[in-house]
């Protein structure tokens, strides 16, 4: 290719022009690119694509809205410097209530037009689409597909233009009505606007007010967003799956530990002794001590199981595990009771003839048990009792308690995520419908 002759074209700044209707000065920021400009003073819509401005339409401003981003401000978004050149307030009417949002026209001489929209201090950076999304179904709702992303229908409403200032790439007019439909895949949104059978599509990306304030260097305080916006990314997105995954890992770990300790448990049979608890008519010393038995190992648990052949009565054993050498005593007690009978509902029973007590952290050494039995003084039959002491039994409860405890974060995050999605979809055309929240997290 032959080298080009560089012809350094420089486009000068647009000069201020006078409104053909009221004569006041109009600043044109994108002369030749914008199709229309609104006079600040008389609100006429003026054809901005001709060097000689001409009035397109005049209207009475029903309201005046001050843009939060002053026209003429510049800010860098997505790596490109943009100038705010136009502003409009639009609204929809739902059940008699007007909901307003605001849109800013952004312009860069090389990159053309983009938009910012703001509702309840939720912001979106809007890029006009030149591809056609394909209609599809997402979770039983109508949706749109663009590339690999699938968007769920959120809302369709008639959008009314209430207030306009500055420059626009189309012939904007107050009173303009379009049918606007939104499809969401947070943080993105696809929107269509239909008027006179012409459909235009745009793609929005959620931004926070703080990002806008920083980009445009705004000095005013940045208001906080209210509620949850259609395509606001959930702070719990991705965390639900992550916390459940973590939960699964912890459970697997606990299970592995439990199996390891079950397999390697010491299970030393230290004592197995039978005796009889006498009834009322028996005299003599009630308490007694067992033979001395060794508890092996440095430290570990001790399981004392009590089996009493009781029928419709109780026996209570006050016990102490006493170290023969040091005199250190571990006091504990256990009741064994068993009742049964028959009533109008049939046979019943209550209690058990066997009970276990687990004593944790018993140092090794030589021990004996001191046992002091008590029983229902009104009954006289002697009760055969068997006491077994096992050193180092596997202990399962703590693992299940652990699993229950680590269940709290994933359940909490799932609930919060569900509440967030419910708030989002509560603002949509599909409010109160089938659970959108839980479905949202499945992907």
């Amino acid at each position, binding site marked *: 290719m032959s080298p080009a002759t560089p012809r350094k074209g*420089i486009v000068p700044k647009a000069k201020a022009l006078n409104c053909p209707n009221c004569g006041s000065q109009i600043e044109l920021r994108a002369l030749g690119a914008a*199709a229309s400009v609104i006079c600040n003073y008389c609100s006429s819509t003026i054809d901005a*694509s001709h060097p000689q401005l001409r009035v397109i339409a005049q209207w009475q401003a029903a309201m005046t809205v001050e843009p939060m981003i002053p026209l003429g401000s510049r800010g860098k978004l997505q790596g490109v410097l943009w100038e705010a050149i136009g502003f409009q307030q639009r609204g929809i009417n739902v059940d008699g209530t007007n909901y307003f949002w605001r849109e800013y026209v952004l312009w860069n*001489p*090389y990159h053309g037009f983009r938009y910012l929209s703001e509702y309840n201090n939720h912001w979106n950076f809007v890029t006009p689409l*030149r591809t056609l999304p394909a209609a599809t179904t997402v979770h039983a709702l109508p949706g749109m597909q663009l590339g690999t992303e699938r968007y769920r229908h959120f809302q369709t409403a008639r959008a009314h233009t209430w207030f306009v200032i500055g420059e626009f790439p189309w012939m904007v007019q107050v009173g303009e009505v379009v049918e606007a439909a939104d499809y969401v895949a947070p943080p993105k949104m696809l929107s269509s606007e239909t008027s006179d059978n012409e459909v235009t599509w745009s793609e929005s990306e959620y931004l926070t007010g703080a990002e806008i304030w920083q980009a445009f260097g705004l000095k005013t305080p940045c208001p906080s967003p209210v509620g949850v916006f259609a395509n606001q990314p959930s702070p719990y997105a991705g965390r639900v799956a992550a916390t459940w995954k973590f939960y699964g890992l912890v459970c697997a770990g606990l299970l592995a530990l439990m199996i390891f300790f079950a397999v390697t448990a010491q299970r030393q049979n230290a004592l197995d002794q039978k005796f009889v608890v006498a009834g009322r008519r028996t005299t003599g010393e009630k308490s007694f001590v067992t033979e001395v038995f060794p508890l092996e190992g440095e430290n570990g648990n001790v399981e004392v199981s009590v089996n009493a052949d009781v029928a419709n009565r109780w026996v209570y054993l006050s016990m102490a595990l006493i170290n023969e050498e040091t005199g250190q005593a571990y006091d504990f007690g256990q009741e064994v009771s068993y009742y049964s009978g028959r009533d109008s509902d049939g046979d019943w029973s209550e209690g058990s003839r066997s009970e276990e007590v687990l004593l944790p952290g018993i140092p090794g050494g030589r021990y004996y048990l001191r046992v002091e039995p008590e029983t229902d003084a009104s009954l006289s039959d002697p009760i055969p009792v068997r006491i077994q002491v096992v050193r180092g039994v596997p202990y399962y409860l703590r693992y299940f308690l652990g699993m229950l405890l680590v269940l709290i974060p994933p359940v909490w995050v799932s609930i919060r995520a569900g509440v967030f999605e419910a708030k989002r979809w509560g603002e949509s055309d599909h409010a109160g419908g089938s659970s959108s929240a839980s479905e949202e997290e499945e992907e």
Partner: protein
Amino acid sequence: MSSRNAICPNCGAEVRFRWSGAVQTTCEYCQSILVRNDLNLALVGKAADLPVDISPVQIGTEGIFNGKGFQVIGRIVYRYDLGTWNEWHLLFSDDSHGWLSDAQAEYAVSFANPFTVAPPAEGYLERGMRMEQHGVQLTLTVITEAFYETTEGELPFRYYDKEKCRFADFRTSDGRFATVDYSEEPPLLFLGQFVDFGSLQMKNLKEFEGWPTV
């Protein structure tokens, strides 16, 4: 092949052709529209003044499309209800040529193609209608009535005597598009794709007072 340089029959200035296939060009000095007949240039008219135009592209702008370098050598300017748009004539490094359309800084590159299926008749155009060309499923989205405003530089055909043009723009779900130009008989088909400004890596662009250069 014709010589790359000629003399403007109107003002005598040197007229330099960048592309051997150019049929029409505009004298840079006196804006005469010149048509090539063999070795001679015939004066066929005078180009209208260029409209207020803030396209960043200009004749001499260079860029890259699909890995192939191009140079902007001419343009047609159309006026429509939102202002004007440009169809920049691109000469590629392999001597092929195409078009870069720039409407409100939305850019698209297209190439003339034969129809594989006859296009809908001009009187039966309707938004939403489907058409398949070269295996691409296309949906008609915009019918544009445009007025020929002016031309600049080298063009592959004579384009000085037109007034009203009708274009049918078709889009796809993957960023491709087609335009049927009904100003010719039979109509012309242009197939192409929308492009991001940045992806064309253009140089020799216009500068804008008060804006950083790209």
